[in-house]
């Protein structure tokens, strides 16, 4: 019996030493960053100490900027203006797999200077003091951003985020199998069993249900959430799979495994470009639309370089690459106004003046909604 005895003694010692270690580290470590809720006060103090971005010549700007982004967005095309303007500064990237992942990384102590969340997921950063206020006077390209986009990054009367990319969410369908789609409820149509694909996301599911049933997305009641859970639980077997990464969806639609799916228009434009017979529906309930923004992490020592990076993000060449190579909309209004390519015009519905009127913008989630809706979604998946 003795080996077991000595082992448990060892465990007790280990546990004790860890408790001591944690206790010792606790106060010291927590004293260091202190992202307090007094956001407004601290930002106004730091501002004057930073020299205006225009004073240093671009070629003398050095340093490395760490960007927390989505994989794929590290491509140079997406920050070509920064690279060309500041030859002696560099940008490196770390990746998040979802908005929640990016939020978790910022909370968890990521050292990224700049991060890239999307509409719906912005309020937490401001409320919890995780994001630096943007000094728009340092952004030479700020004027090309339409007011409606600027407003998306404003909280409590201050600009916290710089809008950058945008797009629609709707139903993408193979026209050779399903010629027309006029409602989001195609996702629940049993005759397309095994040929549908929903995005693997709780808030996304709540959004679709809200459109179909006319719920107020910002005030979902417990009963409504129960109904939503029930209908997606019934829907689950109809999916070929829930898609998580866009390339998986694109591949499945190309091969004909999936005929109709919840999708972003990047997938639509890619498939269109490859000659696959697809259409992007204008559901009677309206499309969804989202905007991606960049924020500067509270406490970063690279506030100046971060502003320069965000300014360059709004540059002409970067915006054109985003539109032409990746089929996403840009917050640079000049670039959007100059689009002439037919595929792109279709992707953005540029010639359809009514499209924006019938679009549902993504509202900001509260922490409670985020938690409840994601928990609902795991229950849907777990009940299979």
């Amino acid at each position, binding site marked *: *019996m*003795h080996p077991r*005895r*000595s082992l448990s003694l060892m465990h007790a010692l*280990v*546990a004790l030493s*860890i408790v001591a*270690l*944690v206790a010792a*580290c*606790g106060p010291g*470590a*927590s004293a260091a*960053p*202190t*992202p307090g809720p007094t956001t407004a006060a601290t930002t106004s103090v730091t501002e004057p100490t930073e020299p205006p971005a225009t004073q240093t010549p671009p070629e003398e700007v050095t340093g490395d900027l760490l960007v927390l982004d989505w994989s794929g967005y590290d491509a140079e095309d997406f920050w070509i203006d920064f690279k060309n303007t500041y030859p002696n500064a560099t940008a490196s990237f770390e990746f998040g*797999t*979802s908005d*929640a*992942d990016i*939020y*978790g990384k910022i*909370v*968890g*102590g990521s050292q990224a200077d700049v991060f890239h969340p999307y509409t719906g997921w912005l309020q937490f950063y401001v409320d*919890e003091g995780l994001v630096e206020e943007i000094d728009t006077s340092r952004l030479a390209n700020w004027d090309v951003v339409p007011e409606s986009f600027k407003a998306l990054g404003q909280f409590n009367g201050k600009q916290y985020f710089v809008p950058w990319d945008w797009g629609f969410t709707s139903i993408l369908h193979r026209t050779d199998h399903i010629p027309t789609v006029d409602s989001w409820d195609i996702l629940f149509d049993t005759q397309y069993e*095994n040929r549908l694909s*929903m995005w*693997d*996301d*709780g808030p996304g599911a709540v959004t679709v249900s809200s459109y179909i049933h006319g719920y107020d997305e910002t005030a979902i009641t417990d009963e409504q959430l129960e109904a939503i859970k029930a209908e997606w639980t019934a829907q*689950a*077997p109809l*999916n*070929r*799979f*829930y898609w*998580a990464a866009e390339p998986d969806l694109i591949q499945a639609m190309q*091969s*004909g*495994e999936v005929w109709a799916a919840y999708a972003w228009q990047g997938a639509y434009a890619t498939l269109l470009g490859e000659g696959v017979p697809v259409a992007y529906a204008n559901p009677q309930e309206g499309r969804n639309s989202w905007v991606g923004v960049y924020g500067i992490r509270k406490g970063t020592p690279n506030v100046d370089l971060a502003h320069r990076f965000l300014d360059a993000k709004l540059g002409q060449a970067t915006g054109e690459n985003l539109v032409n190579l990746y089929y996403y909309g840009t917050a640079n209004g000049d670039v959007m106004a100059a689009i002439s390519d037919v595929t792109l015009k279709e992707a953005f519905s540029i010639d359809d003046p009514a499209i924006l009127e019938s679009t549902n913008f993504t509202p900001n989630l509260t*922490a409670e909604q*985020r*938690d409840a809706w*994601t*928990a609902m*979604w*795991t*229950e849907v*998946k*777990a*009940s*299979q």
Partner: protein
Amino acid sequence: MPGRPPAGAVPETVTAGADPIPATAAGRAPSRRPLNPRRATFWALSLPAWAILLSLIVVPLLFMFGLSFRPDLRGDLLAPFNPTLDHYRQVVETASWWRQLGLSTLMAAIVALVATAVAFPLAYFLAFRAGRRAGLYLILLLVPFWTSYLLRVMAWKLMLGTEGVINSSLAFLGVIDAPLDALLYNRNAVVITLIYVWIPFATLPILAALGRIDVRLHDAAADLYASPWQQLRRVTLPLAIPGLAAAFLMVFIPTVGEYVTPLLVGGSGGTMYGNIIQDFFLRAANWPLGSALSMIMLVVTMVLVVIGLRVVQPRRLLGV
């Protein structure tokens, strides 16, 4: 001889029959020799292992344990918080998560059983029949590890997909008219893929156990007129039991919390418990609830393993 210490570890001065480090060691410590050099070497050599175990497994686990009582993720991660049992309450009240834990445990047990069963003949062949080529075969067995886990799972997608190898072969042979959808994106696909992935892993501990068997025991058994079947059942299998148990546990324990494979080949109906945990960490930014779910899985798995070993008592089962 279970329970007896190896001869070399018994200090010469200890009176006959006493354990080298009796349970009451603490009380008698002053009268003993300061430190056996062999034990000192043991502790010195195991220090790096302890350091890694502590810093990379024990501390993060304790951190996660603490996190599971945290109300939410707001604020500094190391800042003090008011502990709450809300997350555990939510887990306990959600029937579908428990159901999923049960299903995942069942899947893990099936995967571990089949992988161990398939791995045993493989290991047996390598240990006793492969002869001079054993090394080569072992390398062949391990070749899949030269590529990433993800690639191997993706390869199964190519095998099982609508336009995959199996479907195209069957269509070519005229067995089917339309591709079979049922091959991929369900629970069976997850189980099949996991079994494949684990077989080489399961082979190694069994091989190690078989390698320690004195081949003369087989000769002795044969001399006593044991049939090959009796040799296997009465000599080889009992001696291989530690390896078989290690293989089963090595597959079972990580498979309960598996999440990558179901993500790739499970589709909307092949979710496992690990995916729920993953969702709370990566999709909901709800680390506390994810931690509570993880802790429950950890406890359930540990309890199951302990109960399993007690109930089954592998040695007695084989009449040793």
